[in-house]
């Protein structure tokens, strides 16, 4: 037998399976070089964290009254990025969008890793991170029980649920692909993939159960994803603090999360396309479709910002106006207008035109959005904390090197985890891609009478 070459029936290109398994079976020096570089960046963050644990969080630029800054910005930003994957994948699965097939796994992986990185930051920020388990609901000998009325405890439940759901949502459709790799490898590697495949054979019953389970998971994960970023927004909006205590924060945060998530997905897909030579599977049309989505989210983001700003300005409440003006024309104005250009002006100028909605155009717009959305998170947190109600308590904030290194290392960690994942797991779902290539059935296999006699059901 000649493997995938003998698959004329479903119209699948003979090289599809080989193409998509190539990154797993062949390793070039470039892979090792990339891993070493990314690992080095991650080490910077680990070193910075160790330095902070040893010396206390006084090594950061935090000072009264700004006690939340880079770490909480990173937390909100990465949780937002996590909305790229599972949410988009679940929506596209439910509406049965054919073009989703090469995209879903690339997206779901982002969710899993971005959530892990994001969820790390409340722990990093604790000051005494070794006591992080106090967040978990368990009865201690001191009769302390987590306060379910606290938004920080809501965070724990929401992120745990989303992370668990997203990991399972990523893993389940990977099982048939693990079985594929199991059958094409030998020795230790075959045993590892065999264990991950759980003894999958591909019976009609298993396929049906898997597809049903994925449908249920897609239905369940969408409200969970929406709830996660809504709850993250509650960390701010539950506080009676200027520019935070707003009912718009829930949907505003969710829209921003999806916005930054799509941008991250486009960047990741472009990198995979380039470095793993997946041009035959990640077509320009995928980028064009995602570019349209990004454009739509950019408009939605602009709408939310306008609604929030106009309401504040019209209310003219003095405490809020001090925060308002510090971002519009004060110390934070350069960052604010950079954010507006990155999140609204640039995507609009690039993605509105079909000629510019190319792979390169989408990547340029997406890079801007990632920068802009990080700035947005920063500008929600720091200007407010530095300009609270009483002017004598106003202050300022300037980041220090340990915080900056920690931020840089998160991008390194994302790159490292993504690189390793695409090395060990097919980054495009092979079986789903094959299903998309199946030809339409042109004629029935039996007469209707015969089908009714021979089979309980017939299509």
């Amino acid at each position, binding site marked *: 037998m000649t493997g995938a070459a003998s698959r004329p029936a479903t119209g699948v290109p003979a090289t599809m399976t080989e193409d998509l398994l190539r990154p797993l079976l062949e390793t070039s020096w470039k892979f090792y070089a990339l891993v070493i570089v990314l690992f080095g960046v991650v080490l910077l963050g680990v070193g910075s964290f160790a330095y902070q644990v040893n010396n206390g969080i006084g090594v950061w630029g935090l000072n009264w009254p700004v006690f939340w800054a880079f770490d909480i910005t990173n937390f909100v930003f990465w949780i937002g990025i996590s909305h790229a994957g599972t949410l988009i994948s679940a929506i596209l699965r439910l509406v049965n969008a054919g073009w989703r097939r090469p995209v879903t796994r690339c997206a779901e992986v982002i969710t899993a890793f971005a959530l892990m990185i994001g969820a790390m930051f409340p722990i990093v920020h604790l000051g005494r991170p070794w006591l992080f388990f106090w967040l978990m609901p368990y009865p201690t000998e001191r009769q302390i029980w987590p306060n379910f*009325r606290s938004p920080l405890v809501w965070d724990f439940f*929401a992120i745990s649920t989303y992370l668990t759901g997203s990991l399972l949502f990523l893993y389940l459709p990977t099982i048939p692909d693990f079985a594929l790799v199991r059958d094409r490898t030998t020795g230790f590697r075959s045993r590892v993939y065999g264990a991950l495949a759980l003894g999958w054979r591909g019976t009609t019953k298993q396929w049906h159960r*898997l597809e049903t*389970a994925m449908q249920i998971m897609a239905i369940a994960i969408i409200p969970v994803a929406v709830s996660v970023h809504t709850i993250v927004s509650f960390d701010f909006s539950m506080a009676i603090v200027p520019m935070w205590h707003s009912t718009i924060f829930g949907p505003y945060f969710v829209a921003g999360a999806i916005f930054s998530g799509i941008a991250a997905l486009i960047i990741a897909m472009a990198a995979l396309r380039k470095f793993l030579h997946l041009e035959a599977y990640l077509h320009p049309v995928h980028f064009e479709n995602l570019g349209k989505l990004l454009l739509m989210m950019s408009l939605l983001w602009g709408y939310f910002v306008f609604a929030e700003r106009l309401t504040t300005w019209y209310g003219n409440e003095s405490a809020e106006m001090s925060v308002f003006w510090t971002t519009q024309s004060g110390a934070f104005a350069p960052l604010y207008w950079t954010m507006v250009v990155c999140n609204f002006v640039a995507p609009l100028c690039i993605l509105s035109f079909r000629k510019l909605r190319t792979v390169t155009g989408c990547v340029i717009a997406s890079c801007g959005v990632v920068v802009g959305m990080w700035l947005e998170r920063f500008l929600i947190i720091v200007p407010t904390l530095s300009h609270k109600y009483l002017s004598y308590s106003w202050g300022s904030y300037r980041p220090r090197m340990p915080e900056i290194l920690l931020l840089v290392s998160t991008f390194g960690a994302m790159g490292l985890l993504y690189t390793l994942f695409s090395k060990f797991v097919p980054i495009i779902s092979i*079986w789903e891609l094959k299903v998309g290539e199946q030809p339409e059935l042109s004629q029935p*296999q039996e007469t209707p009478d015969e089908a009714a006699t021979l089979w309980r059901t017939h299509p």
Partner: protein
Amino acid sequence: MASSTAVYGLYAEPSAAQRACTALRRAGVPEKEITVISAEPFEAFEFSQRDHSLLLFRLAAVGGLLGFLGSVLLVTGTSRAWPINVGGMPIVAWWPYLVIIFEMTMLSAILTTVVSLLVTARLPSRAKSLYDPEVSDGKILVGVPIAADRTSEVIRRALDAGGALAVKTAEFQS
């Protein structure tokens, strides 16, 4: 687990596999004894239309309900056991508790779905089941266990009728 013998054919096309399934049915093989294994689902063919069931949806709903009840008990029970005044809120404060209840309901539904999938699809499995690694090369396996009322010859003829690339015999645990 008892050891059985099966005869199976490998097919290059799903339509050929369907022809083999139909020939097996015409030969009197019960539908539930025909095993079809493929590297991808073929929803357009009748052999893929078997085993449809709403069981997973129902189990997910039950899981969600259990999660709902469990979370209500958790938040109300522990609040009453350790009553702490927080910002003048009631000890059992339903609005904030809805967040916890929602998350635990969904988590429970998701976990139940996964456990149900694993149980009903018989995963993980270490048993020596009917399988051929050529399935991962794109072949479709159609197999039937040999029984007292049907000889290997009868099955082979039916499998050949579909245009099998190869017809083989295998031992498996049933």
